[in-house]
Structure formats: C-alpha cells, structure tokens
C-alpha cells in the first residue's frame, strides 16, 4: 500500500473527500454571509441561527405537515428567506444609516433570541431527521465508503454556489445589485427600486443559510445550537476569503474544508482551531483576505 507521510494513500483520499464535503457546508454558508456583507454592508451574525431555523423548518414540515425532504429543500429556504426579508425591512432598514456596529449587535441579538426560542420549545437534545429513502446507502469507492447522501450534499452545494456566482457576476440583475452598492443614488435615478433590491438580496442570502440547514438536517441532529457551533468558523472563512468577495467565500469554503480534513488525520486535536490559525496567518500576510481587494 502506498504511504504518504505515514498515512496510507487510500485513507488520505477518503479524508480529502470528507474535507471537501464539509467544505461544501462552509461554502454555502459563507457565500450567503459574503453576499449580505458585500452588497448590504451588514455583518449578519444571525446567519448561524437562520441556518438552524432552516433545519428546523424542514423538521417541522415533515413532523407536522408530512412534507418530505425534497419539498423541504425548496420550501424551507423560501420560508426562511421571506422571514429574512421581514427582518431586513422592519429591523435592519431603520438602522441602515448608522454605524455597522448596530447591525452587528442587532443580528447578534436576533441570533440569541432565535436560539433561545427554539431551545425553550425543543430543548438541546435535538430532533432526528431521517435521510430520504432515495439517498440512503452508499458507494464503495475502494478507498472508502461514500454515503450517497454526502455525495448529494457535495453536488448540490457546488451547483448552488456556481449558480449564485453566475447570478451575481454574470447577469444584468447581478450587475444592478453591485452597482447599487457602489452608488445607490445613481442606480435609483435609472428607475431601479433599490430598497426592494436590498430586501431581496438579504432574503436570498438568508435562504442560502436555510438551504444549508436542510442539507445538514439528516446528518447532524437538528438542534438549536447547531448554528452557533458553525457560525464562528464560517465568519473566519469569509475573512480568509476576503470580506464580501463571492468567489473568495466559495473557494475558501471548500479549501478550508480540505485543510480541516487533513488536520484531522495528521493532528486531530487541532482540527477545531486550524481554521483560526489560517485566518490569523492570512490576516498578517494579506489583510484584505485571499480574494479581497485592498481598501
């Protein structure tokens, strides 16, 4: 058997694949964050909580209404996205002209509120959400057993990330959104409803979080703390990618998943902090992040 640094190659390949799959979650979440920050200048601390809400909405759809996974994958982001629009319209907009710190505090408070609410009702033990029948089982790749569901997570995340990137960077709508950030008054002069654009963008970013939540529901237990467990890491990834950079968020999401996976093989004890170590190094060497434009 071939060895690489003392680790058998098949094991290493397995770990890389796992890292990539975990990176998929990071990518979708950091993409939403980057989108909201880049276009709205809001540091959305509620992102993790909304990811959790996305998972819970999927759980409730099944538990209360009997609506299964595939519909939940569509409905949960829509429901949570609409909820996000309400948040933007009635909570964030009134403080849009104030210092960024206010938005940060508001969304942080919102996150605590949502988490506390779900903890009150569901406790912290978590709820189970079964993997849909069509995605049960797995493939024997020779070097590892790949559960079908994880493969699906990877594929779905790549598609969603690519589509979002295309939407923002390549379409007329995306161009309008970016223009609205640069010069809102001018864009408004062209007859574009900028406030609506902002609301929809926030809703879309939040919907991405909910989408990740539904993807996560069958793998992790659906519990009120799932958001706060992941959000700090995702923030670090956005910082590494470059605040507000769409491409940076996606690429560094996947990259850091890989990196974390490797850490789990070579020095597992450090796997929870490796991302922050990378963040510190990146901030020292390239303060604007890997893909950020220096201000």
């Amino acid at each position, binding site marked *: 058997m071939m060895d690489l640094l003392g680790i*058998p190659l*098949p*094991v290493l390949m*397995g*770990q890389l694949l*796992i*890292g990539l*799959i*975990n990176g998929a979650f990071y990518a979708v979440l950091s993409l939403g964050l980057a989108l909201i920050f880049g276009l709205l200048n809001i540091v959305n601390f509620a992102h993790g909580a909304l990811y959790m809400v996305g998972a819970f909405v999927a759980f409730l759809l099944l538990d209360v209404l009997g609506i299964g996974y595939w519909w939940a994958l569509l409905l949960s982001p829509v429901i949570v996205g609409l909820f996000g629009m309400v948040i933007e319209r009635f909570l964030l907009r009134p403080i849009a002209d104030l210092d960024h710190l206010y938005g940060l505090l508001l969304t942080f408070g919102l996150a605590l509120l949502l988490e506390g609410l779900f*903890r009150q009702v569901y*406790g*912290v*033990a*978590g*709820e*189970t959400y*079964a*993997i849909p029948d069509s995605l049960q089982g*797995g493939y024997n790749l020779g070097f*590892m*057993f790949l*559960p079908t*569901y*994880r493969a699906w997570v990877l594929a779905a995340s790549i598609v969603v990330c690519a589509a979002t990137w295309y939407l923002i960077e390549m379409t007329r709508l995306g161009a309008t959104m970016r223009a609205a950030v640069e010069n809102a008054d001018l864009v408004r002069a062209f007859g574009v409803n900028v406030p609506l654009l902002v609301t929809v963008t926030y809703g879309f970013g939040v919907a991405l979080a909910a989408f990740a939540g539904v993807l996560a529901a069958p*793998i*992790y*237990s659906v*519990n009120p*703390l*799932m958001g706060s*467990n*992941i959000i700090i890491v995702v923030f670090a990834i956005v910082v590494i990618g470059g605040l507000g950079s769409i491409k940076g968020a996606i690429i560094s999401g996947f990259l850091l998943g890989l990196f974390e*996976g490797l850490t*789990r*093989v070579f020095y*597992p*004890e450090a*796997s*929870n902090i490796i991302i922050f170590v990378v963040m510190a190094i990146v901030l020292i060497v390239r303060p604007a992040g890997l893909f950020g434009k220096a201000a």
Partner: protein
Amino acid sequence: MTRTKATLLAGAASLLATAASAQGISNDTVKIGMILDMSGAYSALDGEGSIAAVRMAIEEMGGEIDGKPIELLTADHQNKADIGSNLARQWADQENVDMILGGANSGVGIALQDITSEKGIAYINNGAATAALTNENCAPETGLHWTYDTDALANGTAVAMVKEGKKSWYFITADYTFGQKLQENASEAVKANGGEVLGSVAAPFPTQDFSSFILQAQASGAQVIGLANAGTDTQNSVKQAQEFGVVQGGQSLASLLLFLTDVDAIGLDVAQGLTLTTGFYWDQDEEARAWSSKFEERFGAKPTMVQAGMYSSALNYLKAVQEAGTDDAKTVVAQLKEMPIEDAFARNGRVREDGLMVHDMFLAEVKTPDESEGRWDYYNIIRTIPGDEAFRSIEDGTCEAVKG
C-alpha cells in the same frame, strides 16, 4: 457607642454564630448549590431535568430540616472549569452554601472537587464520569461520586463485548479528561480480558462532524469502534457511523457512555442493538417506575441516570443532615458512609471510604423499533452487575488518602 465597640460586638456575634454552626445547621438554612451544564452538549441529560429531580428530593423532605428551610441555588458552568470554579468559590465564600451538586463534565467535576475540599463544603458529583474523582483526585472527607464512573462503564460494556469475542478495539475519544479517562479504563478492561487496542483518535469536544474520525477507525480494521464520548458527541458519532456503513462493513460500535436522551435523539432505527452500561433505567423496577412517572409528570420526559442520581444524592444528603443534626460537611459525609443507600435510584448502594457510591449497575441493550412500546421504552436489561464487580476496588484504586 463607638465604632470600635460596634465592631467588637459584631465580631463576637459572628464568632458565636461560627461556634453554633459546628453543631447545628449553619446560618439556619441548608443551602444546596447545583453547578451543571444548562446549555451545552450535556444539558439534555443533565440541565433542567437535574434541577427538577433535586426539587423533588427537597419537597420529599418537606422543604425543611428541623424547621430550618432548605434552599437551592443553580448555575450553568457552560462546560468551562474556570466558570465552575468561580461559582463554587463565590457560593462558598458569600452564599454559605453547604453542599454542591456537580453535573456533567469531568473537567469541571475535578475542579469542583479541589475547591470544595479546600473550602470544607460537601460535594456530590453525579454527571461527571471520570473515575479520577475517587482515585487520583479523591477527597474522601468531603467529595462523593454518586451515579456512575468510567471504570463501571468499561467493566460493563467493554468487558461484555470482549467476552463476545470482539477483541480488537479502536477508540474515538473526546479530547479532554473525561474521554481520556474513559479510554484508559476501557483499554485496561479490554486488555485484561484478552483483547487488544489497535489505536485511537482524539476528537475535539464538542464536534459536529465525526466522518473523518470514523473513516480512520474504519481503516484501522478493528472489530470494535469504541466511542469514548457523551451527549451530542455520542449522538452525532453514532448517527454518522451508521451513515458510513460501519456495521455493514463488519465492525461493531460500542458507545461506552449512552444516556436515555441520546437514544431518544438518535432514534431506535439507528441506535438499536447498542450495548450500554447504565446506573439507572426508569423501567428497572417498580420503585424506579413510580418515581420516574412522577418525574415525567413534572418535567415532561423520563429521567436519565444523571437526573435520577441527582435526586438520590440530594435526598440522602438531606437525610444525613437530619440524622447528624448538622450541615457540617465532614460530619454529614461520615454519616452518609454509615447509611445504606436504597431509594428509587440506587440498588444495594453504600458510600465507600474513598467517596464512591458503590451500587448495582445494569448492562443493557437498546431495543429494536418493534420491541419498543413507545417513547422512552428503549432498553432491555441484560444483566445486573453487582456494585463490587462494576466498580474498581479501593485496593486497585489510587486514592492515597484511604489506602493508608
């Protein structure tokens, strides 16, 4: 009156109060402080349920001892030893707490042991698993360990599986004092029974995604993957082990510490067939059932072994205070060591010289969905493990204070 005189008088009064406390109930209240996980990975098996259980014990005593009220303080240690320590210090110094009940988390559990013995207040731990509490970190005059410990878990689950012929083990271990101790005890048990340990991986606590650790365990080729973790870590690792086809791949899973709430969260579809060791099961006998249904009425769920242990330890502590006529820590702990411990929780219990409450443990298997008659009906009890077999003997232990 001059200021000096007033100070003198106050000093004399407080001196009198101290003298009185050596005998009777200090400050005219019996104050119990609970330091537990109220919000983190262990809060479902501990948390609010533990508080409800202790309130039941206090109510059973009529809320007072010889006319002196029983008071309860509770706080969240957030799984951080420094927060737990600060709480204990503050309660000892300012609140005159007489006894501290420690909840889940061995790191906090050991920190509390040190502070309570330094401050001379009684301490009973129910949630922490580490056997260090009655071995290297023992404080037999003030500190008791009540519900279960890592030795008992290893002697139950690990021994049973090795005897079934599952001899080679690989551990996925929560990377702090609890997981390390559990792995150490389980490794000893495996080797003592003719098995071998092929390796282990230390997973940070808490961890959401165990897939890469599971992959490493699969690659080891061991017959058994031993999970030396607890709470949400256990839930995630068991679920993901199933997802990654551990059992189809011909390996067995051993969840060395599994709580009722974990099985509830994992679901019987996935958890069925797991072997586990527990200090208490709500359906173990008539008395346990009766108390557990009272608990369920109040709390909305059946009790875990930690929650039942909280009830038992609080109740027996209060009885000992009543019996001894004082809440002086060393006197009460000595009194507890004289009493047989027999209640809704404990079978054939007694508090040993080193502070360990030795009692019968149960080896159980998680039911299949077909066997289960409803929520919480999760275990088949396979065997009762007598206390002396389940726990390590004082002679084999490392508590210097009692080994002489």
